[in-house]
């Protein structure tokens, strides 16, 4: 998938990954890759500026913690982040429904 396409939904994806458990940056990138079956691949370094922005916006909080014997910045979802994620999920569902309605029920061509 194109990196630009992923970037448009990056905030939602990051909030969703952190929702289940507090995670550090590398864990977040791995979880993104795993859940999407490698389809969502961004340059991993570009996640950090987005994480920092979400923290400035109060949607994430972070602290230095020791993970597997190493010092890592661990991110967790705030209450405000939970509310924002709920809104983004609804918006996404509405978007998918609307696009699906337009595209119709045709079978998708098999990738060659």
């Amino acid at each position: 998938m194109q990196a630009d396409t992923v970037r448009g939904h990056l905030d939602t994806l990051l909030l969703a990954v952190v929702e289940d458990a507090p995670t550090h940056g590398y864990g977040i990138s791995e979880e993104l890759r795993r859940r999407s079956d490698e389809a969502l691949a961004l340059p991993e370094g570009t996640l950090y500026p987005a994480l920092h922005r979400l923290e400035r916006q109060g949607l994430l909080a972070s602290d230095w913690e020791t993970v597997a014997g190493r010092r890592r910045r661990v991110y967790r979802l705030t209450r405000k982040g939970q509310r924002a994620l709920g809104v983004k999920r609804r918006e996404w569902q509405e978007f998918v429904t609307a696009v699906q309605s337009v595209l119709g029920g045709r079978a998708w061509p098999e990738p060659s």
Partner: protein
Amino acid sequence: MARTELIARYLAAVEQRLAGEPLDRDRMLAELAGHLDDAIDQRVAAGMAEDEAVRAAVAGLGTHDELLAAVRANDDEGRRIMAFTRWTGVAGLVAVPLAVAGTVAWNWYVAMLALALAAAAIVGILAAHWRSSRRFVAAALGVCVAGNLAAATATVGQDSALRAVGVPALLTLTALLIVGYAMLRAGVLPTAAVALVLVGVTILLGVNTALYVADREPPLLAGLGGILAVTGWVWLNGALASRRRDLHPAAA
């Protein structure tokens, strides 16, 4: 090459590339270093040779340009400051004709108004510097020093009233012309607005000089010129809004 040396080299290059960017550099570098450690360990555990694992982990982080673009795209505070700087830049441009008029008319109030607007412009420039680029403040400070020296030299032997008004007004004028040029180059101000103000300055200078030589009162016209410049800017600001862009093209 040892793993730690490769990581240190990569992080040094990142640090150099992000110099001048508004971010907590130490935190970013510490997180990237931790990320690389984890990524390398996982690859080595999967059977990859360590050198190859280091190269793959570094490649996975993305290029320096991609990282820089991400930093800028996520700098929402920086964008707000750029908007503030843009408007204080407008104040600075308006100060130019006022400074010229105040100097030519020897009008203390007009010169003071020009100085107040110029002060707003300098604050905006300093804010932009604090969060973004060192070039603006370097230009402003350099020109302030040079302008002050030039103005003081040019008014040696003149009476005290001229020195009191003329020195700060000339200082303002020279500083803002250079800073305005720098902002124009950076894409903060649209060309047409700058051209309008420069044309206004030229007309004001001519009219005021002619009136002064004819021994008539020019301050009213000077004030009128200032209002004209502001009105013109407001109109152009709306008309050209889509042509403006932030200092950071990647964030546009």
